């Protein structure tokens, strides 16, 4: 077994020196302030998500016009952004559909062409859920649609 030298050391904790002794755990007063700030921000979430969906639609259009590595990467970033953010913005179903789309784009080999019809099925689902402002996860039709999209992506991806 080849051995390499290992250096293990603890740098000075400059952050602790700045932060002071503090509560030693969660600063609940600060958490409460931040949760109140988030409540105020929530009125903007629908508009923010609309912007992100617009970016996704534009990325889909560019990929359709010129399907190359750059437009594919843009499409993946747009889907991935929505996957991460839609739940924060109180649209968990959109997060799920965007997760399915980013899984398809990310996991299909670069050499494989992305099926536009399945991309569009995802983008259209996101548009409908957003337009109808479905913020809960109880809608049976929407859930069935999510399940179907997941299954279609499963079929497509290499086993």
């Amino acid at each position, binding site marked *: 077994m080849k051995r390499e030298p290992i250096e*293990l050391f603890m740098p000075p904790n400059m952050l602790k020196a700045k*932060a002071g002794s503090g509560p030693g755990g969660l600063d609940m007063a*600060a958490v409460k302030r931040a949760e109140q700030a988030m409540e105020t921000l929530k009125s903007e979430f629908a508009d923010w998500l609309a912007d992100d969906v617009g970016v996704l639609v534009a990325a889909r259009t560019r990929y359709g016009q010129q399907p190359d590595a750059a437009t594919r990467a843009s499409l993946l970033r747009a889907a991935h952004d929505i996957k991460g953010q839609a739940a924060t913005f109180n649209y968990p179903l959109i997060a799920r559909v965007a997760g399915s789309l980013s899984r398809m784009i990310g996991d299909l080999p670069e050499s494989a062409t992305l099926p536009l019809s399945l991309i569009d099925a995802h983008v259209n689902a996101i548009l409908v859920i957003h337009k109808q402002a479905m913020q809960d996860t109880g809608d049976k039709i929407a859930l069935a649609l999510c399940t179907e999209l997941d299954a279609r992506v499963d079929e497509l991806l290499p086993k």
Partner: protein
Amino acid sequence: MSGYRFDRFKVLVVDDNIHMRKLVTTILQAFGVIQIYEAENGDRAWAILREANPDVVVMDWMMEGMSGIELTRMIRTNPQSPNPFVPVIMLTGHTLIEDVAEARDAGINEFIAKPVSVKTMMQRLVAVIEHPRPYVRTGAYFGPCRRRRGDADYRGPERRSASATQQAAE
């Protein structure tokens, strides 16, 4: 008990999505952070790092151009890095175990899987304040120690000596 002096922190927020930057900066401001720098890509973040030398970096993973992983490697290993020890909190939609491992191997300190919550952001900040990990330098890695806990019963070869892949090959 009084709270942390977050007002003394300089925090750099790196995300190519303006809404996520606003969300994170809103949370940090409510915590009390005053000096917040924003960068929309890795190149701008690198410039700010060298100009402002922040105390903490909160960054997205997937960005156009330089990714958060590449930026973290630069912070840790580039000779021009102003602070190779700066705590990096990665905020990302990547949630698979192998993603966490890749981020850890790049040298991040803490990982937040989206959706973002106030409590998680506070937990990660407290982690870098109260429970900093030692740093490790080997031929293949420089960054925070990748072991969360010591395993007193482990009797195998030294796992820090190289990457897991290399050890498996050996």
